[in-house]
Each structure stands twice: as structure tokens, then as C-alpha cells.
């Protein structure tokens, strides 16, 4: 490219200012402000906010990790065999169906799952209509950890399958043919060839889903019944919105940054090893 003149370079800088300002003012600065606020109380440097987080929300940290882990197990327990199967046996209908959740907003997923998994929600209505549930049955999973994990997995499965299918398609046909030559069936080809060869992509998909699930807000908010253990983001929202306690809310936020960064760190460590 031709060498750019200083005046022109200055103009490009200038044109880039508005967008950069939006990110700095709307995200970068608030990010720093929340970290600072988590260590201060009435202008004094203190760990009091974190003490309160430890006292009040310790169990919710564990609960959040549990829900995310369960959601992850569901997503990949279904996603890996499914993507592998679809890589070996193409099905346009299945691939189309799997894309649908990508286009359903998180809030809508939360509401849909709330009425689907409610104690007498549309899932139980369907089961009852098929004669699979009695008239006085109720469904117990909707408001608990499992219901949340199911909802999160439903939404994330689409992106995970998309990422995994891309990675699995990148595995050369010759490896699969060689495996078939030795008599490998569908499952053998998935576990012995596709999964090990696409391991870095699977790792990336795990980290992306895990961080997104740990920080999930709209789905738990739509599904929360307001008592019992809560996801961290729900605690943060109520701490900030109802108690007006920005300090403790920020400390919960910093815990969530650390959880997200932790997932990313383990991923990077795994890749560079």
C-alpha cells in the first residue's frame, strides 16, 4: 500500500474516534469503575464488599458453577455425538432445526422454558395428552438448577453444533476412510477420529459456552422463582437494583470476571501445553 500522509493518517484517527469513544465510555471505563467500586466503601479502601459476598453469596457462587457445569454437560453430552453423527450422515432437516435456537433471543428462551417446564407447563400437558402423566402429576424441574441447565443447553446447543460441525468438517475424509477400513462404525469414528482431531475447537466451544452460562442473566431472570439459591447475575441485579448497593454488586461482578477469566486461562493453558 502507498505510504499514507500524516494528514490523512490523522483523519483516519479522527474518524475512528466516535466508535472508540463509545466502547471506552460505555464499556472500558465502567469495567474499571466496577473493579474500583468493589474495593471501596464510602470512599475508603476496604475488603468489606467481598466479606459480604462471602457471607451472603458463597452458596450462590457454588450454585452458579453447578448450573453452568450441568448446562455444559448437557450441551456437550448431546452436542458432540450429534455433530459427529451429522458429520458422517448429513441431514439438512436436522441441521436446519438445530439452527433455530440461534435466532431465538435469550429472553424469549427464558420465557418459553418457563411455561414449558412449569410444574404444570406445556411439557406436562403434552405428556398428559399422550397418557404419560397422571392428572395429579406435577413437574419438579422448572424452577430448579436442572430446569435452568436445560434452558441454557437448549440455547447454547445451536452455537456449539455450528462450531463443532465446522471443526469436524475440517477433519480430512481420508482419516475417516482409514478408520472405516479398519471396521470402525459411526461411534468409533466420532470418538477415535473426529473428537481427538477437533480437540482445540471443542475446547474453544467449551470455554465460550461456560463463560456465557456463568454470566447468564436473562434466562435465569425469566425462570427464577425468587427464593432459594440464585445465579450470581440475579444476585448482582437485585443487589444493585433493589438495595442500590453498587459496592457489593461490583464485588459480585468481579467474582464473575474471575470465573470467566479462569475458564479462559485453563483453555489457554491446555492449548499452549
Amino acid at each position, binding site marked *: 500500500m*502507498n505510504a*499514507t500522509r500524516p494528514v*490523512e*493518517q490523522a483523519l483516519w484517527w479522527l*474518524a475512528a474516534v466516535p*466508535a*472508540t469513544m463509545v466502547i471506552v*465510555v*460505555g*464499556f472500558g471505563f*465502567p*469495567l474499571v*469503575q*466496577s473493579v474500583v467500586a468493589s474495593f471501596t466503601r464510602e470512599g475508603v479502601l476496604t475488603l468489606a464488599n467481598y466479606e459480604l459476598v462471602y457471607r451472603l453469596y458463597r452458596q450462590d457462587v457454588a450454585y452458579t458453577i453447578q448450573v453452568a457445569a450441568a448446562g455444559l454437560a448437557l450441551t456437550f453430552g448431546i452436542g458432540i455425538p450429534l455433530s459427529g453423527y451429522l458429520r*458422517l*450422515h448429513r*441431514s439438512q432437516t*436436522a441441521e*436446519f*432445526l*438445530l*439452527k*433455530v435456537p*440461534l*435466532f*431465538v*433471543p*435469550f*429472553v*424469549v*428462551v427464558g*420465557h*418459553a*422454558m418457563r411455561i414449558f417446564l412449569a410444574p*404444570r407447563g*406445556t411439557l406436562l*400437558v403434552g405428556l*398428559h*395428552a399422550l397418557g404419560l402423566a397422571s*392428572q395429579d402429576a406435577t413437574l419438579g424441574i422448572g424452577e430448579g438448577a436442572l430446569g435452568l441447565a436445560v434452558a441454557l443447553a*437448549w440455547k447454547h446447543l445451536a*452455537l456449539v453444533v*455450528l462450531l463443532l460441525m*465446522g471443526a469436524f*468438517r475440517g477433519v480430512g475424509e481420508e482419516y475417516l476412510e482409514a478408520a472405516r477400513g479398519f471396521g470402525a462404525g459411526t461411534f468409533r469414528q466420532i470418538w477415535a477420529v473426529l473428537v481427538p482431531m477437533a480437540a482445540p475447537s471443542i475446547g474453544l466451544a467449551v470455554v465460550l459456552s461456560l463463560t*456465557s452460562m456463568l*454470566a447468564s*442473566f*436473562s434466562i435465569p431472570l425469566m425462570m427464577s422463582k425468587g427464593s432459594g439459591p440464585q445465579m450470581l*447475575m440475579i444476585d*448482582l*441485579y437485585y443487589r444493585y*437494583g433493589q438495595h442500590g448497593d*453498587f459496592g457489593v*454488586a461490583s464485588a*459480585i*461482578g468481579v467474582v*464473575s*470476571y474471575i470465573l*470467566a477469566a479462569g475458564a479462559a486461562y485453563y483453555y489457554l493453558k491446555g492449548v499452549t501445553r
Partner: protein
Amino acid sequence: MAASGRRSAQDRPRGLSSLVLRAALVTVLLVAIVGPLAGLVLWSVAERWHWPAALPQQIGLKFWIRITQGDLLKALNRSVVIATVTTVAALAAAIPVSYGAARARLPLGPVVLMLFLLPQAFPQLPVFASATVLFYRWNLAGTFLGVVLIHLVGGLVYTVWTMTAVFRAIGEDVEEAAINLGASVTRTFFRISLPLALPGVVASAILVFIYSLDEFTGTLLVGAPYVTTLPVYMYTASLGYELQIASVTALVLMVPGILLLVLLERFLRAEYLAFFGRL
């Protein structure tokens, strides 16, 4: 790649068991994916529905008519206006950054690009709560402008990164030809590069428009209590156990995305699709 996948399936013709397995897979997926959404459709037309009836006892469009009047219509209008303004602003702000970064004209281009990944790398809620504290100080909380700004934070991530990819894909040789023929850099950009980038601009615009339409977290915090968009309206309705209204709103929110999925399925590139997962 696609062809090789198809070949592998054809090379190994399987019997009845394989056919049954595929049919079962599609059926399970249909139930699991369409099932929860079908519940929304049923609830949106259920004027009366008591357990354990398989279908609502009384079906009607009473709640759908609410789209044409009152609060729901107001929320719909506001959502569309905010999404339109956000889309135009996000494109206008992103194009110089993307073009500059793609052509290595922007000093520190890679660093600037990384900045636009921040909102993807950190949990949104704590940062948006913090931004709301700032916006209160600047009298931006509860205002139209405040909501557009918070939508731009997320929206710019899509526009900057997709437009950078789009400009990188346009060969520099056509631009150099124009410049060698005496066109100025600005004229080259507007007459050559931008028209060539138009399909990318459209794809990028659709992404941001849908992102803004669906944005919930930032709007809930920054918009409260005066700016109610459709997702916030749905949340409020659901909070008050107005399941029908919430379901109607949910279905309206799904329309643009599903339309896009059906119409553009063949044309949408996988990398754009991947962006949707982060909505």
C-alpha cells in the same frame, strides 16, 4: 467440504436401521426444539386454559389484537426506532474504523480492534450496571439516547468485526488502480470500496438491527423506568403473570430472526451465524 460429507454418506448405503435412526433423530429434534416454542404459540391464543386439557378451552386472538394498540404497540414502535437509529449509528461509526484497520491505515489498528472485543470477553451485567451509574451522573439514564448508547456498545462489536472482514476481502488492487488513475483516497473509498462492500454492509446491518431489537440487559438497567422496549415489556408482563401477553411479545420478537433464518439460510455465511449465538 460439503461435497465430501455427502459422499461419505452415499458411499455407505445403510439398511432400514439407519433410516429408522435418522427418522428418530429428526423427530426427537423436532419435539425438543419446536416443543418449547409451540407452547408460546398455544399460550398466545389461550383465552382460557385450565389443567389438564391438552389444548386451551377457549382460543382467540384477544391478546394478539393488543399489538395494534396501547402499551404493546408503543413498545414495538420504540423498539423499531431504537434498533433503526442504533443500526445507522453503528455502521457509520464502524466503517471508518474497519476500513482503516483493514488497510493498515489506522495507527494501532490491531489494538483498537481488540478494544471492540471487550464486550464479548467480560460478563455484561456488572459492566452495564456500572455504566448505568455513570449515565445517571450524565442524565442519560432513562433516556432514548442512553439506551441507544448502550445498544451501540454491543452493536459495534458486530459491525466493526464483520466490516473489517468484509473490507479485507476486497482486493487492494482495484483501489490502487483507481488511485493510480488519479482518484483521491476519499473518492476511491466512496466510489470503489464502499459499493463493493455493500453486501457486507447489509449483512452487518441486519445483525445489529436484530441485536438491538433483542437487547435486554442493558435496556433493563439504562432504560428503566421510562424507556420500555419489547424485551423489557415482555419481562414486565411475565413478572405480572400475564402469560398470554408475554407469549405474544415473545413471538413478535422471534419474527425477524426466524424470517432471516428461513429466507437467508442459503446465503448466510457460517461466521455471521456464529455471531448470533452471542445475542
